[in-house]
């Protein structure tokens, strides 16, 4: 790939790994993330990685902007700050698994099936967040 285009391909959020005193691989989850490689964190590994990561966001932006042009300012505001916002106020505690049923229905995901539905089912995720830290972060006590 040519070096000139690299700047435009940088990922928008780069995770910062803390160097631990015990060893170079201490903080790094070798099994899940593979070998340490700085290039993987800065540049996308596939031409579609960035567009796929932000796909839902970009689709929503496009749809809401079209809706604003057709139906006026209040239509997208109502759809973003009305029911979805209300539903997100009554969620479970952050570390508990949630089916997100209301949010799925409001977004229309209950009537479509896609690649994201089969693998990586969040209800069968083997990872769990640290409960105390997550609740403290949510309440702003951290």
């Amino acid at each position, binding site marked *: 790939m040519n070096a000139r285009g690299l700047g435009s391909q940088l990922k928008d959020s780069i995770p910062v790994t803390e160097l631990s005193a015990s060893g170079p691989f201490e903080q790094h989850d070798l099994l899940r993330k593979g070998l340490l490689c700085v290039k993987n964190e800065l540049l996308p590994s*596939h031409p579609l990685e960035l567009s796929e990561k932000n796909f*839902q966001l970009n689709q929503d932006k496009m749809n809401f902007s079209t809706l604003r042009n057709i139906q006026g300012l209040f239509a997208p505001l109502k759809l973003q700050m009305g029911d979805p916002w209300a539903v997100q106020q009554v969620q479970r505690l952050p570390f508990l698994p949630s089916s997100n049923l209301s949010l799925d229905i409001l977004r229309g995901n209950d009537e479509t*099936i896609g690649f*994201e539905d089969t693998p990586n089912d*969040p209800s069968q995720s083997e990872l769990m967040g640290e409960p105390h830290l997550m609740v403290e972060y949510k309440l702003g006590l951290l």
Partner: protein
Amino acid sequence: MLSPKASGTDTPGPLFPVGAEGRQGVLGDLGCQAPAARRGRGWDVVGGCDAAPEPQPGPLHSVSRNASLERVLPGFRIPRAHKTGTTIAGLVFRDGVILGADTRATNDSVVMDKNCEKIHFIAPKIYCCGAGVAADAEMTTRMAASNMELHSLSTGREPRVTTVTRLLRQTLFRYRGHVGASLLVGGVDFSGPQLYSVHPHGSYSRLPFTALGSGQDAALAVLEDRFQPNMTLEAAQELLVEAITAGILGDLGSGGSVDACVITGTGAKLLRTLSSPTKPTERPSQYYFAPGTTAVQSQTVKPLTLELLEETVQAMEVE
């Protein structure tokens, strides 16, 4: 069909492939396949991670792993997704649409499947022929069929061919051509019989007759010559079989027999193996070789030296 080239060794070889014969060594045994747009399928080959609640590496992390494996191991090439040779064609006749396809699936220059199905079901009166990467076409059409079923249950109406086409081309455009599926969508709905061709990057066109795949030139030549609007079913079927046969005989990537699907206002009929332009070859004798037929020229045994670094003994408590 996609399958990694079978590594012909039965005995476990060295861990890292040495030399040209070990091309598929490690990854071939594990059955890993190239990541470029695989699965959902063809999938195999639709590997896009999507808006999940938390960012997961998804299948795209294997792209960098494969690239570094290619760099590190000499003479090693990751298995790539191969396009299959195909001839698919369709035409609109008086009462509906007729779709046709050959039945050969290839992997480079080897025939992987002599009788595979390339006409996929999407809705009771909408069928789709798939060319290009076999797994891509298969998984894309399956996803489209599931979504059309959900959509028609939700709207309470029969699915339309334009809806299927729009769904397919929006999916294909989203993956910018990495999903290598060329599809012919044909069906009958309330606005009559329609035939659309959808290309891997997401473009489409509505046509009275068309052909796709590596044998499209041969099939299109026949169709261009003899197509008439408003043909009867018999004439249309005969023309379609001739078009696919031209593809089978003239294109190396197409072969097998001709499959067809006739869709009218009352329903669809899938005609499997409608015609076989070529007879299957008769094997003249048995190909069983007694052990010892091939003389062993030389034999080298290399013991794998392991040295014991550390030994810990943990006593187990037995009650």
